Structure formats: C-alpha cells, structure tokens
C-alpha cells in the first residue's frame, strides 16, 4: 500500500508569458551597450570635436560610411526601447486605473514609434548634398 499523501499536489499553472523576463534581461544588456554607445558619442561630439564646429559637412562626412549610420541607429533604437520600457514599468507601477493606464501606455508607445520611424528614416534616407 502506498504511503504517499496528496498534500500539496496541485495542477501546474498555465504556461505564462516570458515577456517580463525578457524585458528585464533586455534592460540589462541594452543598458550596458548604451553606456558604451552614449559615452562614445559624447567623446566624439564633445571631446575629440568641439560642438561649436559641428556642421552639415561633419555629419555628412560621418554618414558616408555605413558604420556610423549603424552606430547612430543603434544608439537611437536602444535608447528609445530602453526608455520606453522604463516608462512602461513606471506607468504600470503608478497607474492602477486600467483605462488611464491603457491611454498612457498607448500615448507612450505611439510617441516612441513616431520617433523611431522618423529617426530611422533620416538615417537610412540621408543623401549627402555636399
């Protein structure tokens, strides 16, 4: 005869979403990359060059190589995603009213998407006029 009791046996819960897990991990990885990208960007713009001397020619020359376009696009995309996810979390924490939260989140996602499309369009479509 089995001596096993049924205490504590329970159906396993439905398979949950991994979204929060990946979101948490993304914040760590993108945070690390952003430190490198943003510090690099700051050194190029403020230390190696003087912001007073930055003009159209400087940007056009930079964007002649695809590498700087990729650098700037990564900076744009990661900072937008990192910032948007950070704000998403803040809104989730502080807005308990579901309707208000949904409105705020929609405004956030909408704004981020517009910035992303505009920024990406400029980086891809830019053609040097000089």
């Amino acid at each position, binding site marked *: 005869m*089995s*001596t*096993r009791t049924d*205490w*504590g*046996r*329970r159906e*396993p*819960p439905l*398979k*949950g*979403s*991994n*979204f*929060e*897990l990946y*979101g*948490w*991990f993304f914040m760590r990885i993108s945070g690390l990359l952003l430190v490198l990208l943003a510090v690099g960007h700051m050194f190029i713009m403020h230390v190696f060059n003087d912001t007073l001397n930055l003009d159209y020619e400087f940007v056009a020359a930079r964007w002649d190589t695809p590498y700087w376009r990729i650098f700037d696009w990564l900076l744009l995309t990661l900072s937008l995603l990192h910032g948007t996810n950070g704000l998403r*979390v803040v809104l*989730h*924490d*502080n807005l*308990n009213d579901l309707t208000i939260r949904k409105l705020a989140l929609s405004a956030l996602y909408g704004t981020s998407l517009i910035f992303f499309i505009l920024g990406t369009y400029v980086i891809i479509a830019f053609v040097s006029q000089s």
Partner: protein
Amino acid sequence: MDIDLKILRYDPESDRKGHWEYYTVEADPEERILDLLHKIKWFEDGTLSFRRSCAHGVCGSDAMVINGENMLACQVLVKEVSNPITIEPIRGLPVVKDLIVDMDPFFDSYKKIMPYLINENEPGERERLQSPEDRDKIEDTTKCILCAACTTSCPVFWTADSYIGPAAIVNAHRFIYDSRDEGSKQRLEILKDVNGAFRCRTAFNCTSACPRGIQVTKAIEDVKRETLLNN
C-alpha cells in the same frame, strides 16, 4: 524618563480616516516599544488596538511603522529611537482598527507560491536527507516569520497592490533552492508573471525593513536569475 508617543489611530465605527493621538508614558531606556503600547492600553486608553503574540521577535505579529521605518515593536528599545516616537500601521494593507491591518491580501500572495514541499517520490525508509551545503542555500530565506515588514515597506506594493510582494518571493526562494523540493518550475512559472519577481525595482526597502536580517532583495534577484537560466 517621559516618552512622547504619536500614534495614528483609526476606529472604523466613527472615523472616516486615521487621526493622530498623543500620549506620554514613563519608560526606562531599556524598555521596548511594545512595553510602551502595553502601558497605554493597560493604564491609559484601553481602546488602543494592536497585534502581538510572542513579544520576542519570533511570531511576527507586531510589525508597525516606528518613526517612519517598518520594525517589530517587540524588538526595538526606547533608547534606539528618537523621542517623540511616531507609530503607524504598516502601509499598503487595509487598516482594520488602529495598528491592526487586514493581512488577507498578504497571505493570499504567500499561498500563491505554494509554500510547502512538493515531492511526488517516496521519502524512503527515513526522512529526506539534505547535505549541509544544500541546507546553506536556503539558510537565509528559512528565517522568514511572515511579519509583512518587507512587503509593506515596498514602494511598488504601496501603489500596485497586485504585486506579489517580497515576502512571497522570499518564501518561494526557500523552496526553489531546497534540494528536496521538485516544484521549482511551477513556482518560477508563477513568479515570472507581470506581478511576480520582475516587478521588483530593487529599492532595497525590504532588506532594511526585515527584522530577521534576511537579504530580501538578493533573494529576489536570485529568483530572477533562476528564471532566466532555468526557464
């Protein structure tokens, strides 16, 4: 010496919200805050309500906000806090009366993580054995007395009461890292929800509030990593 106390009181039959009441009691510096509350209740104002049971920091009944920080009234001495002393009920849970809060939401979260050993196999002739090294992994989190000092010090819990809270995650940690337990996957599945471990913003309020000295934020980070690596 005379000690001034300012206590946030609430009577559900006459008050719409809490109000402050002031008391002065004579106390020795070596006496505990709980002794002051007893003096008020027994000799000055019998209507003051608060929970306490063992009065020695083991049962976890008398967690309250003392001078702005979550503590057990039975563990803090008069000489350790500045005079006047402010006492409020722990935050984020509905107040029933004076310093007594409704602990049901707290224990509902606790029950969600299945705080019992899950092992479908026969234990064998004797008990399930565990090496001292394996026991060490859960040494810190077995110390929890469920006083709710951590959960009610958490700023996320204050604003979003759907958050499962640090105490539930600490108790999940106690079983997830228990070598005899086989329910880790189920518990991690519950904790990766939007209101689970990833809701933690590492404010460290829980760690400083824990009267047992549990490294609560570290335990939550352990659970997050475990979810990432073994999910």
